């Protein structure tokens, strides 16, 4: 294991997701401690002291987000877990939903108590069938056991938890789009201010946190914020569930303690690149983070400061390993097609820009590329940056600019020769795999 495990700290079995097993592991003891011996403000204080950063991609300090909620404002407050995991390469929250759903339920009850929430929601992407069934079953078990609903654990605290299924929209993973979706509307993000913690769901103060961020609360409240802060790297406390995929020998979800060497993680813990090929580059945290070359990751440690210094980010923890010989033109084509498909269409720079970008990259791959195409793509990326309501337009730009900066020669080669510099395929050949 790459460092200390806080979330993946039990063996997954056929029953490990059920309440009885979770309780046998000490589950819901922390909720009891919180409800019977702490004031809501103290809970928020511990979360702030822990220094935990959001695990959904933006890495915003969770404590600071919570502090905006005024407990005595006389309004209902809402809490939403963002389980709309859709950033390509990311499947870590799915691990929690499938294997530790009670961890999320307990943590949400703790958060709900701290923020004085009567109704909480988990917004889960519509495609997640097993995760939804596992989570809904856990919620039902919790209601039956007096862990949700009225008088939780025989205290005065009451909270209802609704599992809300999305219906296929990447943009609903953006917090304001997510809330619009729960309101029964299309998932259009909206401008801030006002912040969602001031005017969120049905115009009431709302906290939206990522599933993994929330799941950590049980640990934070069990050990105390200061103790949690000692784990991981100085400015990145705790651990990150990293979902690793692509041309890697042992894909899957790993819990990585912040500060762990990235190269060691890929080569040792995950078995290195498929079929003995050399590493070309990685997408560190979902396709919206900039690629880092094999040489660049040599000195990077898995934490926010180190990734930022290298020119990329932890993002959503979705790492994609790319082998030497992979065609970056085709890879970027798949990425741009995705962004174009998922643009919600609200803001012109993104709606039109993604379309133009898609046309340009398709043109290059079809052999119709012209000189100036790459500059046009960079111009569109620049025009998108900061000019749209949500970050999706920017994100596509980062992917484009990031890949063009490091692999421009492959694009120029295709424009000039009308074909890939390599074999143009994205997969590692099956025959090559069989030989390895």
């Amino acid at each position, binding site marked *: 294991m790459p460092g200390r495990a806080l979330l993946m700290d039990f063996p997954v079995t056929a029953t490990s997701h059920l309440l009885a097993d979770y309780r046998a592991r000490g589950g819901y003891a922390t909720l009891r401690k919180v409800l019977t011996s702490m004031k809501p403000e103290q809970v928020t204080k511990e979360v702030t002291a822990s220094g935990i950063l959001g695990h959904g991609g933006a890495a915003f300090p969770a404590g600071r987000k919570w502090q905006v909620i005024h407990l005595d404002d006389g309004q209902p407050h809402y809490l939403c877990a963002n389980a709309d995991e859709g950033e390509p390469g990311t499947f870590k929250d799915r691990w929690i939903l499938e294997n530790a759903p009670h961890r999320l339920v307990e943590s949400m009850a703790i958060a709900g108590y701290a923020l004085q929430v009567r109704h909480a929601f988990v917004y889960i992407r519509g495609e997640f069938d097993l995760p939804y069934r596992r989570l809904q079953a856990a919620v039902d078990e919790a209601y039956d056991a007096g862990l949700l609903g009225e008088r939780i654990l025989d205290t005065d605290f009451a909270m209802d938890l609704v599992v809300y299924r999305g219906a296929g929209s990447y943009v609903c993973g953006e917090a304001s789009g997510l809330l619009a979706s*729960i309101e029964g509307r299309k998932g259009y993000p909206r401008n801030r201010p006002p912040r969602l913690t001031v005017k969120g769901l049905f115009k009431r103060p709302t906290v939206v946190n990522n599933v993994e961020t929330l799941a950590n609360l049980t640990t934070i409240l069990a050990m105390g914020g200061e103790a949690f802060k000692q784990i991981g790297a100085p400015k990145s406390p705790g651990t990150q569930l990293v979902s690793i995929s692509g041309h890697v020998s042992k894909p899957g979800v790993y819990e990585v303690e912040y500060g762990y060497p990235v190269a060691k993680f890929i080569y040792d813990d995950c078995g290195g690149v498929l079929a003995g090929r050399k590493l070309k580059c990685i997408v560190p945290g979902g*396709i919206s983070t900039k690629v880092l070359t094999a040489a660049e990751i040599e000195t990077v440690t898995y934490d926010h400061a180190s990734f930022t210094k290298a020119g990329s980010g932890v993002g959503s923890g979705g790492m994609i390993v790319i082998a030497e010989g992979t065609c970056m033109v085709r890879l970027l084509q798949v990425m741009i097609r995705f962004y174009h498909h998922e643009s919600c269409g609200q803001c012109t720079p993104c709606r039109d820009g993604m379309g133009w970008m898609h046309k340009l990259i398709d043109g290059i791959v079809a052999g119709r590329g012209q000189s100036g195409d790459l500059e046009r793509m960079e111009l569109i990326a620049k025009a998108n940056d900061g000019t749209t309501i949500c970050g999706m337009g920017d994100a596509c730009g980062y992917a484009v600019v990031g890949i063009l900066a490091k692999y421009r020669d492959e694009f120029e080669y295709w424009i000039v020769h009308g074909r890939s510099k390599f074999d143009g395929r994205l997969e590692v050949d099956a025959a090559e795999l069989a030989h390895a």
Partner: protein
Amino acid sequence: MKHLIPEFEKIKRRYPAGFESSLLLPCLHRIQEDRGFVADEDIDGLCEWLGVPRMQVEEVLSYYTMLRREPVGRYHVQVCRNVSCSMRGAERLIGHVCKRLGVGVGETTGDGRFTVSTVECLGSCGTAPVLVVNEAYHENMDAAKTDTLLEGLK
């Protein structure tokens, strides 16, 4: 959808007062599960029961990719075409599924059994390539496993 209203009433109890429009997505999911798609009369019924404008229902239906206004085949085969799946053979897999069923992407077989679609990231990148039949994920797929799977679907 009228026969589903008792079920909808039960769902409604979980939501706070004033959240009527929130019921739109759960109700549409349930209607689609029941009929296979959302028909005009479902929209009429939902508008009446929820008291939301027809425009809002239409908007939601056109926005979310999982909601359908037309029926699909008995088995809806959706193959992921995003980055990690493509790096593990999704492009060949899509070709194989289409060839085997004799249809193109977005088409339904003549007997109405299969509809083939491509989709963006399903959050199954570590077990790529993935395809979904109706709701169920089938992971680490290859041509042989796909053949066995499709043969089993009557």
